[in-house]
C-alpha cells in the first residue's frame, strides 16, 4: 500500500457486509488522523470522535449496567453489566450489587480493544458487545477502563487489569452460590486480548484462580515480519505501519517488538511450563494480518502443556464480532458461551 496512489479496497469489500465495511473503514480513517508521526496521539480529537454511551441502571433488553470507581488513586473505572432481576424490574441503588442468585454465574472481566490507544469502556461498540456477552453467556461482565497509550505505556494497562481482577475476586456479591467462589474469566479483543495474557500470568503467580482466558483477535507481534503480515499488509483495513505505531506507543521507550509484552513466546519470552495457567480460547481471523503471531501464541501455550482451543475463522476480518450480522459472530459467541459455562 505504501507508495501506491490507488487504494485497492476491492478485497475488503467482498468479505464483509456493507454496514460492517462502513463501520470499520470509518474507524480506520479516523484513526489515521489521530496517530501523529512523532508518536504522539491526538487525544482530544479521539475523545471527540469516539461514540460513547452512559451506563444505564434501567434494564434494556433485560440487561442493566452501572459504573464503579474501583481504585480512586488511579481513577480506575469499571462498567458492570448484569441481567435484570426477575422479581424487581428496576434495580434501586442498593440492589446494583445484590448478591448473585444463581448456582453458577461466570464473571467475565473484559478488556476492550483499540490497540492500547483507542476506545474506552463507554465506547458504544464495546458497551454493545458487553451487553451481548451477558445475554448470550448468561454472565456478569465487568468491563475495565484501563489506562491507554501513548500517555500510559506498558505496564499501566496490565496493572489496571490486575487491580480489576483483584477487585472482582474479592466481591462477595459475585460469588456463585454453588461454591461461594467468584468464577472469573478474562476476555478481551485486540489489545484487550494481549492484556488477558499478562493478567492471567500475574494471577497464576499470585495464585488467584482464573477459570479461563478468551482472546479475540489478540494483539501480539515480534520483530520478524511474518508471511501473513507481508501478504495481508493493507488489504483488510489494517497495515503494518499502523501496527508498528501502536507498539511503539505502548511498549516502554527504546524497546522493540520482541519485548515479552508483545511477543510472549519469542526470544525474550517466559516459559509457561508447569505454571497453573487457565485454559484458553484463542480466536483468530483468517484475514487479520497478525494471524501468524496469534497462531504462534496458541502454539506456544500448547507446547507449554497448557490447555488451549484455537478457533480459526478463515474469512473473518478484524472487528467481525462488533456486529451480529455474520456467521463468525454467532460461531464465536456460541464457543464463548460453552467455554464459560460448566462442562464447557
Amino acid at each position: 500500500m505504501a507508495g501506491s496512489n490507488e487504494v485497492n479496497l476491492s478485497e475488503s469489500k467482498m468479505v464483509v457486509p456493507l454496514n460492517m465495511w462502513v463501520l470499520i473503514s470509518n474507524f480506520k480513517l479516523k484513526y489515521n488522523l489521530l496517530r501523529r508521526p512523532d508518536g504522539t496521539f491526538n487525544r482530544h480529537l479521539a475523545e471527540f470522535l469516539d461514540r460513547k454511551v452512559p451506563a444505564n441502571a434501567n434494564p434494556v433488553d433485560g440487561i442493566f449496567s452501572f459504573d464503579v470507581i474501583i481504585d480512586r488513586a488511579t481513577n480506575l473505572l469499571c462498567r458492570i453489566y448484569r441481567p435484570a432481576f426477575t422479581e424487581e424490574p428496576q434495580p434501586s441503588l442498593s440492589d446494583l450489587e445484590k448478591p448473585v442468585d444463581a448456582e453458577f454465574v461466570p464473571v467475565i472481566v473484559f478488556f476492550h480493544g483499540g490497540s492500547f490507544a483507542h476506545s474506552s469502556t463507554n465506547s458504544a461498540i464495546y458497551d454493545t458487545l458487553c451487553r451481548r456477552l451477558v445475554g448470550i453467556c448468561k454472565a456478569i461482565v465487568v468491563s475495565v477502563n484501563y489506562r491507554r497509550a501513548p500517555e500510559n505505556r506498558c505496564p499501566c494497562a496490565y496493572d489496571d487489569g490486575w487491580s480489576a481482577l483483584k477487585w472482582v475476586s474479592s466481591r462477595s456479591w459475585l460469588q456463585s452460590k454453588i461454591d461461594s467462589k467468584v468464577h472469573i474469566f478474562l476476555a478481551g479483543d485486540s489489545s484487550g486480548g494481549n492484556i488477558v495474557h499478562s493478567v492471567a500470568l500475574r494471577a497464576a503467580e499470585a495464585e488467584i484462580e482464573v477459570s479461563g482466558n478468551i482472546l479475540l483477535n489478540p494483539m501480539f507481534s515480534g520483530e520478524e515480519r511474518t508471511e501473513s503480515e507481508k501478504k495481508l499488509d493493507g488489504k483488510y483495513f489494517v497495515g503494518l505501519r499502523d501496527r508498528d505505531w501502536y507498539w511503539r506507543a505502548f511498549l516502554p521507550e527504546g524497546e522493540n517488538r520482541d519485548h515479552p509484552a508483545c511477543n510472549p513466546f519469542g526470544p525474550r519470552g517466559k516459559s509457561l511450563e508447569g505454571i497453573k495457567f487457565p485454559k484458553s480460547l484463542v480466536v483468530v481471523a483468517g484475514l487479520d494480518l497478525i494471524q501468524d503471531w496469534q497462531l504462534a501464541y496458541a502454539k506456544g501455550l500448547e507446547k507449554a502443556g497448557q490447555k488451549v482451543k484455537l478457533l480459526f475463522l478463515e474469512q473473518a476480518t478484524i472487528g467481525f464480532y462488533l456486529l451480529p450480522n455474520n456467521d463468525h459472530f454467532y460461531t464465536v459467541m456460541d464457543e464463548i458461551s460453552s467455554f464459560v459455562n460448566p462442562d464447557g
Partner: protein
Amino acid sequence: MGPFDFAAAAAAASSSSSSSGSAPKHPPDLDGLLAGAGYKVRSSELHHVAQRLERLETAMVNSASHIPHLASDAVHYNPSDLASWVDSMLSELPHSSSLPSGFPDPYPTALGCGWLDPCAPQPHQNVVVPQQQQQQLTVVAALEEDSGIRLVHALMTCAESVQRGDSSLARSLVEEMQALLARVNTSCGIGKVAGYFIDALSRRLLGLGSAPAWTYENEVLYHHFYEACPYLKFAHFTANQAILEAFDGHDCVHVIDFNLMHGLQWPALIQALALRAGGPPLLRLTGIGPPSPDGRDTLRQIGLRLKELARSVNVQFTFRGVVASRLEDVKPWMLPVSPKEAVAVNSIMQLHKLLGSDPNRDPPIGSVLPWIRSLNPKIMTVVEQEASHNQTGFLDRFTEALYYYSTLFDSLEAACPVQPDKALAEMYLQREICNIVCCEGTARLERHEPLDKWRARLGEAGFTPLNLGSNAFKQASMLLTLFSAEGYSVEENEGCLTLGWHSRPLIAASAWQAVPSVVNSPTGVINPNDNNNQL
C-alpha cells in the same frame, strides 16, 4: 390529602415497566446495527456513504501532507452523522474532486459497486441499541458499607411509600433513616447526599415545601457553586465560544441573558470580542433578573461594572436590565431588537423552570419559545442539567435525583475545592434537591430534562441544532485540566457537548438557530432534514 399527587402515582405505576425496556424509536430508515455503534446512517444511504469513505481514503492517501491539517485545524462536527462527517473531510482535501476513473456513481440497486449484498435483513428486533431513553440512571459508586446500603434501601422504600400516599409509613421511615445517618459517614459519599434527601422527604411530609429562595442569598450561593466546580464555567465558556462564532462578521451584536446573576459569563466574551480580527462590534447586553429584595437596582450595578470593563478594552457597550421574577413574565416588547443586529439568546439552566404549571394550564415554555423565535436570534445557547427530574412519578424522579446528585456531590468532594466554596456550593445544590423532592405544580421549578427531550422540544418549536465542534470540545477539555481532580470528562453528543463526572454526563450545552421562514438554509447550519448530498 397533603402535597401528594395521586394521579402521578397512578401514572408512575404504569411507567415503571422497565423490564420490558426496549430499544427507543429511531427513524425506521436508520441502519440499526450502526446506530448501536453510535452512528446514524440511513439504510438507503449506506452505499453512498461507503463510496464517500472510499473516496476519502483515496484522497487521504493522495494528499498525505494534508492529514495533519485535517487532524489539528479542521473542525469536526457531530461524528454521529457519518455522511456529513465524511463530506466535510472531503471538502477539506484538494484531490477529492476528481473521481478515480471508471468509478460508478452511487446507485443503491446496482451491486456493481462491489459490495456484498447486505446479507440477511437486519434483525431489528434483536438489536441491542444504546439507549437515549427518557429514564437513564447511571451510577458512579462504590457502596462499601452495609449501613450505606441499608440507608439507600430505606430511602427507596420511603419514596415509594410517599408515592403510594402512605404517609405514616413514610414518616416512620424518615425517623429510621435519621437514626441510620448517625452511623454512616455523612462527610462524603452516600451519607452526605442521603442526608439532604431525608431532609427533603421530611419537609415534604410536613407540607413545608422548599425554603423560600431569598434572591440575594441565592446569588451568593450561585457564586460559590461557580467557584467550587467547573460546571458553570464550562457552561459559560462553551456558550461564549458558540456566540463568538455566530457573531463573526457582524458589526452590531446583542446578547440577551436570561439570568444575569453577577454577569460572570460576560467579561470573557467582551474580552474576546475586543480581540476580534477587524475590531470589536457594538455590543448590547440585555440582562434579565429578579427584583432585588432591598430595593437596590442590582441589574443596573452589574451592567455598570460590565460597561466599565468594556470601556477599558475599547468595546462599545450598552446595557439594559429587565426585571422579572419569572422568565414567563418577560414580554417581547421588553426586549426590543434591531434587524441590523445579530442576536444571541443565552439560557443557562433557565428553560427547565418553564416546564411546570397548574393542572389546567399549559406550561409557559409553550409561549416563551415562540417569542424567542420572534426575536430572530442568530443563535440560542442552552445549557441544562442532563437529568430526568421532571417525571410525573415521584419515585422515578426521586431515584433519578438520588443518582444524579450523589455523582455531583462526589465530584465536589473529589475536586477538593476550598472552603467555604464547597459548603456553600453544596447548599446551592441542596436547594435544587429540596425543590425536586418537596414541591409540585408551579412551585416545582427544577424540572430538569435530558438532551433528547430538549432536542425534541426545541425542534418542534422551530429551532435547528447548530453543532458544537471539535474546537469547542478541545478548549473545554483543556479548561478542565486546570482543575486538579481527574474525573471530569467532556463528551460529544450529536452536536452537543456534555460535562460529566467520570462517565456520567451532568450538564449539557447546545446551540440552536431558529428555522428561517425563507427557503435557503443559512451557512453553518447542519439541518438534519438536508439530504447531505453535497459534493
